[in-house]
């Protein structure tokens, strides 16, 4: 796959809840290039999280087409394998497992790969170093600050060498200063690991860090604003 190819191609995607009463996605179109960093913005309830869930194959659409990393998500049955290989999630809440140490939390996605225990540990260490947490690898998440937890979550998202990071308001529960650290980290790692970054955010200053902003309204992409790049 070369750099100009689209890693995400969505056409006319529809998803409704409550027997069609709620149209979370209503004919969504979106194309994202490999290695791109986009932010998705829009009012609450406009369908941003729903869109991310579709890209990450956490949910399936009712209509339309969605191709991610060359896989037709309307057809494939091996959704978990797709998630394990291609996607890394960063949620608003860190969602770490409280009784596991930092490094164990990072290794969790690797259970579904054929990685050996040494490979697992080395990869987790490499990423924890990258997020500047190598001195806390054996701590429990409850002992960490919010920003540190989110850094663990980022390491966890990257551990399987995904092609796409999906971040749903990754700074939403952090103060602006910590949020900025996390954003810079995400941006750095996206470049370093050559991974596509799709980030949902409410805050314009966060959105502006992306190469492109996509505005979502009523389950559709409104206009595509090419911002900084």
């Amino acid at each position: 796959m070369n750099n100009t190819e689209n890693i995400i191609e969505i056409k006319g995607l529809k998803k409704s809840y409550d027997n069609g009463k709620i149209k979370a996605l209503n004919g969504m179109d979106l194309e994202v290039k490999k290695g791109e960093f986009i932010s998705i913005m829009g009012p609450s309830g406009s369908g941003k999280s729903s869109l991310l869930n579709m890209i990450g194959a956490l949910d399936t659409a009712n209509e339309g087409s969605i191709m991610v990393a060359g896989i037709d998500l309307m057809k494939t049955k091996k959704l978990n394998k797709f998630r394990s290989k291609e996607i890394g999630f960063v949620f608003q809440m860190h969602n770490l497992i409280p009784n596991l140490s930092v490094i164990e939390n990072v290794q969790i996605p690797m259970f579904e790969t054929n990685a050996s225990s040494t490979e697992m540990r080395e990869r987790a260490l490499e990423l924890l170093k990258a997020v500047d947490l190598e001195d806390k690898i054996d701590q429990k998440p409850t002992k960490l600050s919010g920003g540190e937890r989110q850094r663990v979550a980022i390491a966890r998202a990257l551990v399987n060498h995904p092609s796409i990071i999906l971040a749903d308001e990754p700074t939403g529960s952090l103060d602006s200063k910590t949020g900025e650290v996390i954003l810079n980290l995400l941006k750095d790692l996206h470049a370093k690991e050559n991974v596509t970054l799709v980030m949902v955010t409410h805050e314009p200053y966060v959105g502006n860090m992306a190469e492109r902003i996509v505005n979502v309204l009523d389950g559709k992409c409104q206009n595509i604003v090419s911002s900084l790049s």
Partner: protein
Amino acid sequence: MCIDIIKGCEKREIMSFLSLVVKNPFRNKTRSALAIVGIAIGIMVIVALGMVTGGLKNSTQSTLKAGAAEITVVQAGSNSFESGGTINESTAADILNLSGVKDTTGILRASNTSTSIATTSSNSSQGGFAGPGGGLSITGIDSSKLSLLGIDSLNGTVFTNSSTNQVIMGKTVAQDLNKTVGDTIDLYGQNFTIVGTFETGSFLTDAGIMMPLANLQNLTSNQNKVSDVLVKVTDNANVTTVSNEIDNAYPNQLTTTTAADQANRINQGLSFIDTASWAISLLAIFIGAVGVINTMIMSVYERTREIGVLKAVGWTDRRILGMILGESIVLTLIAFVVGTIIAVVGVELILTLSPSVGGIITPSFSYDIFLRAFLVAFLVGVFGGLYPAYRASRLSPTEALRYE
């Protein structure tokens, strides 16, 4: 559960998943402890009853020892444990003439309620095996015929038939009264020397004292009378045939019981205890399983979001199912260990603290009792965990992640 096991993935990786499964039940210690207690009680019942009934079974089997008399003949209308002489001593010699009979002997069963015994042992009053009337069970027998009672070897010597102050004593009474060879005992107001002790494995025999037949006949004023005739059949004779033959030779006078009959009667009692213990176990298992289901459902419910995360990072439904099922089995296996330890320690403790019970029962440590308890624990884990694990594996990732 770990698909990677089939692929032959490295040990540490499996260990890691396993260690997660082992760690998780300890997240809510109180709730897990309660579930463990519930199942441990069931396991404890299974193991304790198994050890005790197994021990009793071993004991009744040894009453069917080779060498001992197969048939006991008593006066019609009486039972074999009734004391006092009712049969003429010469009957033993008459029965020996019947075909298929190898050896016979007349014995006299009596009991001694002398107060001096009661004061020597605080336990004699509660000993369930004591002779009729609550005293010691004393049997008069010819010293050369002891093998018909299954007494083949002695610690010490046997009494001489002409003696008037010698007895031999079963292991249980000896322990109970704290007597050994060389000690004396007061019976019928006379001093007797314990010249030997014996252990046959039959708790009834081991709970008795033996002395020369003639001496007991004198002491109890039963001259030339016996209470039972013990009959040993020839090697090729059929016990039932000989038994019927005796019944027919002395209609309305004598009745026979075979050792097999007695053992059967005891075994029937034991199989009733067996059934009862299974019923109790099943109930305990049922309650335990409900406890496990409840515990695991609560655990899955609380960890809904976490399960959503595991799905989001690519875990298969099977792995999540395996994790919850594994946690449930971990709970019940801990309960197995706890319950087994309590049962073994408890049974041993009761038997040592209460020697009168300890004398009757040597608890069985046969491995199938523990295997049975292990299987029960394992199955409770599987069945208790199945539904919660299935629910967890079928959670929709988006719903799970939205869960507050």
